[in-house]
């Protein structure tokens, strides 16, 4: 049995050591990771994927912990991917989401993996997607992805999910405005966490108003749920709303449509990634430098140089 076959076998048997090692291969962009995914893909497709996003400090990790406890109480298993930011300067990271869910570590029906963003454009989305595949093939009923607070890349990751929960909190004031412009559009469900705090009902009202003003069909308006993650209040309701959403989508064909759209994005992402690698390995830094001098002296332009380099690349690709 070669390495890939061994990995495939052990992952199918939900061997934690192998699941963990496979995720490391993915994170390190190892060549074997791609082979493994190709081999495992036939066993994927049974898990439901839930994405959780929202601003830093909104209580995402605590909410995830409580949600998983509820899912476990229903006898279902759960894989978790928790993303925290890497330093753009050193590449290092403190991954601290586990702190919010210590009691889940001893549960055999839960697998938790922390991930740093590692600063690579698009790379994290790829790594997250592939990690979900590993957990899917291992037989987890649900996979929950928790993103870092903000930004375009995070919306991409969450878009790999079947249901996206956006977590807000009372008292964010002007930050509500940024929510409106950004992750607002990707939410399938809204949660107002820390609902025992002052202003929670106002936040719920504002979100509902905003939803009413958007272009949703009345039947497809995302629900807004007040929740107190620390005490678990509202968590069962949240989970049943998530289930309702996914079930409804399966029945009306939106689930398939959504997953197919995601697959299209994924292929495009992989192509772009491969193109980047191809460019990196085929154009030496000295070639850029020589041309930069010419452009600096106005003997050429950035566009002409790019065209020239592109034609070199196209020749090499043949």
């Amino acid at each position: 049995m070669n390495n890939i076959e061994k990995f495939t076998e052990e992952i199918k048997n939900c061997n934690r050591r192998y699941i963990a090692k496979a995720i490391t291969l993915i994170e390190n962009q190892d060549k074997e990771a791609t082979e493994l995914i190709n081999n495992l893909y036939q066993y994927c497709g049974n898990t439901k994927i839930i994405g959780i996003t929202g601003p830093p400090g909104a209580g995402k990790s605590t909410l995830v912990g409580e949600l998983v406890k509820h899912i476990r109480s229903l006898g279902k298993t759960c894989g978790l991917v928790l993303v925290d930011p890497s330093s753009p300067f050193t590449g290092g990271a403190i991954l601290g989401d586990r702190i919010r869910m210590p009691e889940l570590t001893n549960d055999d029906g839960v697998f938790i993996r922390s991930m740093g963003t590692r600063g690579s454009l698009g790379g994290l989305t790829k790594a997250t997607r592939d990690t979900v595949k590993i957990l899917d093939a291992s037989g987890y009923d649900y996979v929950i992805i928790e993103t870092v607070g903000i930004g375009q890349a995070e919306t991409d990751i969450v878009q790999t999910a079947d249901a996206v929960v956006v977590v807000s909190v009372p008292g964010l004031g002007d930050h509500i405005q940024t929510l409106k412009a950004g992750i607002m559009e990707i939410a399938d469900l809204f949660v107002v966490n820390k609902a025992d705090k002052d202003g929670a009902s106002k936040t719920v009202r504002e979100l509902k108003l905003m939803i009413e003003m958007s272009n949703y069909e009345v039947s497809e308006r995302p629900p807004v749920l007040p929740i107190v993650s620390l005490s678990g209040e509202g968590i069962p309701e949240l989970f049943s709303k998530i289930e309702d959403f996914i079930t409804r989508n399966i029945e009306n064909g939106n689930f398939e449509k959504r997953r197919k759209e995601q697959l299209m994005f994924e292929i495009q992402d992989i192509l772009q990634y491969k193109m980047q690698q191809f460019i990196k390995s085929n154009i030496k830094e000295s070639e850029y430098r020589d041309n930069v001098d010419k452009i600096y002296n106005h003997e050429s332009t950035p566009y002409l140089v790019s065209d020239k380099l592109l034609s070199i690349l196209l020749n090499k690709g043949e």
Partner: protein
Amino acid sequence: MSERKIRILVAKPGLDGHDRGAKVVARALRDAGMEVIYTGLRQTPEQIVRAAVQEDVQFIGLSCLSGAHNHLFPKVTQLLKENDAEDIIVFGGGVIPSDDIPFLKDNGIKEIFGPGTSTDRIITFINSLCNE
């Protein structure tokens, strides 16, 4: 293209609530470009080992200031063995009398860093083991 990153679990076994030291080390390792999974206070050896396996770390750093290190640290290395994960290197720190160090090393703890250790020494220790 493959890019290996050092992953370390920093954990506090036992019942003392003093995690300043663990946080200082975690921060220093982060600044050295490593990925540090911090699991928080009052972790059992079982929790630490299970988290280390799931996170696929190369190192576990244990901090203990309660005096229970002779009981807790060897429990971690023993559980690693039972989980086929003895390749994970364990080091420790905290208030640990020098008389106890040989016993801990005999039980699979690779190094003990006492009070006053510079964070650079810990980073050098980790890097040198990674380059082996």
